[in-house]
């Protein structure tokens, strides 16, 4: 390995999984919006932790437990700096984006929502930012309202926002980058408008956190949710960021060990944030991996990652637009690192099966965006999503594979 293992020059060598053939072709991994691959440094961090430091955290008085606690709390601090949170206590470790949003919806929700209140979402939300709010609405009598999307270009209809952000709106939850459209929403503006209207803001950062610089204080969001496995870390671990004042006022959503200050037979008192929201043995091993992933991505430079991924997506969009019978969805201009499309006469799943034959990993389906797909009159689309190790040559392979598939089906 070269002297600088984090340089862009040997980027593919840092992801050992990429060095394989699939169906006789070099693997072209373009399913990064579903999950990204893991670099050697993240795999090594897990390996080291389990070889040397593993023990249950907190309360432990022995050397390994203290080491593991330091590792776990060190990861919390690292994540706080990664998104520029004001303090590590504003970082709650969860299983992922979905659990983070459920935590807000089911802890903050019942404590703050009542009949007549409105939860404002957008039509481009992933199921994980719709269904938890439906559960909160059912429990509290609040209702759901959606900011529309402007057709195939997939931008939020900001003109409609003033009419929708009425005083009844208590929470505005929206995605930073759409996992289907690639739209990059103006987060700071949306958070500011929510706050002005008296609503809290919840940002789904699953598709942005591993791809660009994030600063929760500059964004002005109240909550932000993301997963580790979409940012070069491992599955099963994610984060909820929350503003301290809001977290301190929220009741626990799960009870158990680790989150209490005192337990009696009839009732208990709980710890302050973040422990209050981390009942049971936390996932400290994967937090260590997340720490390594933050270091890895900052080593590459997140501004440069954003430019790389958006550039590949723009090039793919241009090249795919030349294909007969293709319908591309999402913004023509600035977009996140993915493209989504469908063909007039070939179903997405057939396209994905044929691409796999060429060693190309794509995703076909509704991408957990069923309401949006219905709104656009689609049942399924093909998605190619890019990350730091993808190249323009891989776009060539993608386009060539699409041409072969179209030809086969005589479309």
């Amino acid at each position, binding site marked *: 390995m070269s002297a600088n293992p984090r340089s862009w020059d040997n980027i593919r060598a840092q992801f050992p999984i990429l060095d394989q053939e699939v*169906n006789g072709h070099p693997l072209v991994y373009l399913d990064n919006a579903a999950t990204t691959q893991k670099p050697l440094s993240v795999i090594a961090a897990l390996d080291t932790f389990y070889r040397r430091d593993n023990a249950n955290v907190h309360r432990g008085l022995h050397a390994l437990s203290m080491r593991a606690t330091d590792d776990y709390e060190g990861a919390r601090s690292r994540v706080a700096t990664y998104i520029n949170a004001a303090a590590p206590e504003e970082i709650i470790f969860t299983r992922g984006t979905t659990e983070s949003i459920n935590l807000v919806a089911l802890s903050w929700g019942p404590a703050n929502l009542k009949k007549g209140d409105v939860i404002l979402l957008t039509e481009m939300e992933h199921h994980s930012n719709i269904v938890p709010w439906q559960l909160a609405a059912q429990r509290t009598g609040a209702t759901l309202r959606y900011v529309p999307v402007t057709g195939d270009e997939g931008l939020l209809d900001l003109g409609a926002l003033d009419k929708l952000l009425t005083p009844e709106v208590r929470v505005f939850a929206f995605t930073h980058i759409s996992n289907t459209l690639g739209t990059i929403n103006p987060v700071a503006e949306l958070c500011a408008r929510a706050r002005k209207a008296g609503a809290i803001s919840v940002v789904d950062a699953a598709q942005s956190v591993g791809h660009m610089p994030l600063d929760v204080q500059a964004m002005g969001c109240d909550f932000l949710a993301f997963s580790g496995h979409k940012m070069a870390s491992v599955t099963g671990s994610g984060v909820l960021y929350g503003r301290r004042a809001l977290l301190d006022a929220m009741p626990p959503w799960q009870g158990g060990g680790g989150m209490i200050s005192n337990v009696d037979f009839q009732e208990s008192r709980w710890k302050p944030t973040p422990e209050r929201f981390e009942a049971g043995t936390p996932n400290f091993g994967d937090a260590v991996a997340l720490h390594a992933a933050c270091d890895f991505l900052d080593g590459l430079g997140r501004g440069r990652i954003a430019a790389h991924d958006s550039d590949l997506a723009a090039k793919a969009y241009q090249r795919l637009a030349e294909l007969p019978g293709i319908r591309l969805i999402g913004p023509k201009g600035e977009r996140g690192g993915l493209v989504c499309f469908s063909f007039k006469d*070939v*179903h*997405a*799943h*057939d396209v994905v*099966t*044929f691409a796999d*034959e060429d060693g190309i990993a794509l995703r*076909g*389906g*509704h991408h957990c965006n*069923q309401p949006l*797909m219905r709104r656009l009159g689609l*049942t*399924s689309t093909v998605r190619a999503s890019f990350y730091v190790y993808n190249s323009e040559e891989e776009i060539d392979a993608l386009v060539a594979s699409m041409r072969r598939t179209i030809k*086969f*089906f*005589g479309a």
Partner: protein
Amino acid sequence: MSADLSDLYQNVILDHNRRPRNRGRLPTANRSAHGDNPSCGDQCDVFLRLEGDRIAEITFDGSGCAISQASASLMTTQLKGKTAKEAEKLYGEFHEIVTTGKEPEEISDLGAFAGVHAFPARIKCATLSWHAALNALRDDPAPTTTESHTD
């Protein structure tokens, strides 16, 4: 193209996908059922006109991949004129074909689906319309979903 892929996309399947038979709603239907494949969003409605115990007419409508559309189309040609009992038996054969790759005992276009067994993720595509048809025959009002059965 690999042998597996050309086995999957046989001419019979491509033909039924391009020119689906008995597609559309059936105004005279006295039974119908809806099927969903939640993991991929495929949908299929099956409409039947039963005369006594026999399927006098059958159509389907829906959206999905070539495998699911061809399977629904071919199914309608195979089930027309059959009784409920005969339909269940035929599905048993079809299920064995798509899950094991076994060729049918008698020469039948259903054999075109033997290649599906090499693509386990696609078995549900092939069986969705059959589940909807069997539900319609059983007069089961609950929409069928590929998550509620093991294939």
